[in-house]
């Protein structure tokens, strides 16, 4: 395996069993992602991009194939090992922000540190992240008091606070207006350019995809083409 590949996927298959029926969500996906790349995975609904996202993020075990993320073969990990991997190596950004509604923005970020077993007190990285994302003055508000754009910036802060090897963003602008979408995408690109953060982004939107270094298209559980 090449030294600068952070993700290496070979012949990845995922079959869901729905009653008596087998649904082939992934049918032999091959994918290489160099460290520091901003990759967009595009494709219609049902093409398998969310399943790929869940497997790469350690939320789902593959049926067969090889998935290596930062040197760890996910196909050989148990549930608890995948949980530990999510804690340290993966950051998620979701379409619906998925912040804990009872906690402030500060605590929503801090809880990711806590789950990873890290102490966030007087952490310069914590301050750097919230300043980078422009949410320093919104930290003591709960999600219900934040705009959609602010909520997504808090979610991005939470995703990168533990220095993940990969940042997985699933339709991160799907619930935002065009202005906030542009702001969030700019932040993601900045994170990639300034911090070298590897990002995999799922979207339907070609405008969103244009922010990435490379776009791969999925259809019927396979990667059908790639463009730079």
């Amino acid at each position, binding site marked *: 395996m090449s030294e600068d590949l952070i993700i290496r996927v070979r012949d990845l298959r995922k079959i869901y069993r729905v009653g008596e029926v087998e649904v082939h969500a992934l049918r032999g996906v091959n994918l290489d992602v160099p460290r520091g790349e901003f990759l967009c995975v595009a494709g219609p609904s049902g093409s398998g991009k969310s399943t790929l996202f*869940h497997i790469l*993020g350690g*939320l*789902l075990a593959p049926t067969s194939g090889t998935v290596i993320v930062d040197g760890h073969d996910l196909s050989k990990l148990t549930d*608890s090992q995948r*949980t*530990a*991997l*999510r*804690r*340290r190596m*993966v950051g*998620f950004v*979701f379409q619906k922000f*998925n*912040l*804990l*509604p*009872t*906690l402030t923005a500060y*605590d929503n970020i*801090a*809880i*990711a540190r*806590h*789950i*990873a077993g890290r102490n966030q007190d007087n952490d310069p990285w914590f301050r750097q992240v919230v300043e980078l994302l422009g949410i320093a003055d919104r930290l003591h508000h709960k999600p219900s008091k934040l705009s959609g754009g602010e909520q997504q910036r808090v979610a991005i802060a*939470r995703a990168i606070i533990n220095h993940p090897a990969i940042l997985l963003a699933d339709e991160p602008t799907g619930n935002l207006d065009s202005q906030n979408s542009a702001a969030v995408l700019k932040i993601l690109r900045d994170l990639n350019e300034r911090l070298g953060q590897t990002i995999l982004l799922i979207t339907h939107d070609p405008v969103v995809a244009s922010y990435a270094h490379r776009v791969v298209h999925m259809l019927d559980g396979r990667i059908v083409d790639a463009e730079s």
Partner: protein
Amino acid sequence: MVNKLVLENLKHRPVRTALSILAIGIEVTMMLTLVGLSRGMLADVARRARGVGADIVVRPPGTSLIGLSSAPMSEKMVDFLRRQPHVTHAVGSMTHPLSGVTTITGIRLDEFDQISGGFKYLEGGPIRNRDEIIVDRYYARQNNLHAGSTIQLLNRTWRVAGVVEEGKLARLVIPLDVLQELTANPGKISQVWVKVDDPANIPKVIASLKEQLKGYPIYSMEELTSLISVNNVPGLKAFITVIILLAIVVGFLVVFLSMYTAVLERTREIGILKALGASPLYVLNILFRETVLLALAGTVLGILFSYGTRWVIMRWAPASLTQMIVPDWWAIAGAIALGGALLGASYPGWRAARQDPIEALAYE
């Protein structure tokens, strides 16, 4: 961090939190009130027995320690006891149940005065006529009676001759022969109170009486009062155990429902935590801490409520039941409530801990 999340979760649903605390509080109150009532009633019995001022009590064969049986023993026993060496006084009394836990004592007041020093009258004075009655302070307060008031008891009207300080015999006292006549027990008594010349002679007198009166329960006052406990009252311990088990079931069901709905409501949040890498133990820890907090708050509330039930009893029915505050049971009741609550949170917690993060994140 986890504590903050737990507190915020509880604050987020204030009504459910308050209801859970209230239910656990009632569970704890049930336990503390029941134990307090049992101990209070028994302590009251012991205090009244001590208040007579006797050194030895002789009860009829086959009677229980605090039995309310009427009068199965011949009054001739009093004379027999008076003739014993070292015995200075002996007085027979009859106890007759009225309603609930209320009893009436029949006793010869002149003999009772000699052994006990007599009642302390707060109003009025001793009985002079056969239709007169003495009541204690609590009975008078509960029934709004004063010296000179009238009261209906045992199918006849009584005039209150005096209101006395509580702590001797029953709350209602009439002459022994009147009670014997009214209950069709002429010449019968429930127990004999015996006073000896020197406390050092009490064991000697008891030994002699036990030799002569085979089968009769004979106690020194010290022994009698120490025997009046929950463990020595037939059925009481079993009754308390049953009520405590019921209280545990109530606490278990309430916490189960509360946590079950909490887990359902927070499906998405649990999914978020798991996506962030929270282990099943981490999720379980959050729910269990919430449960512990609910149980602790419920225990504190239950302790406060137990003061409330005592106040209510003393305010509205001071002559009926006596409830003690039982600090030694606070931790026990709290532990029982906590155990029931944790049991109630176990299944919802298990469900939460095993939740699939992808399904949970898709939950609307």
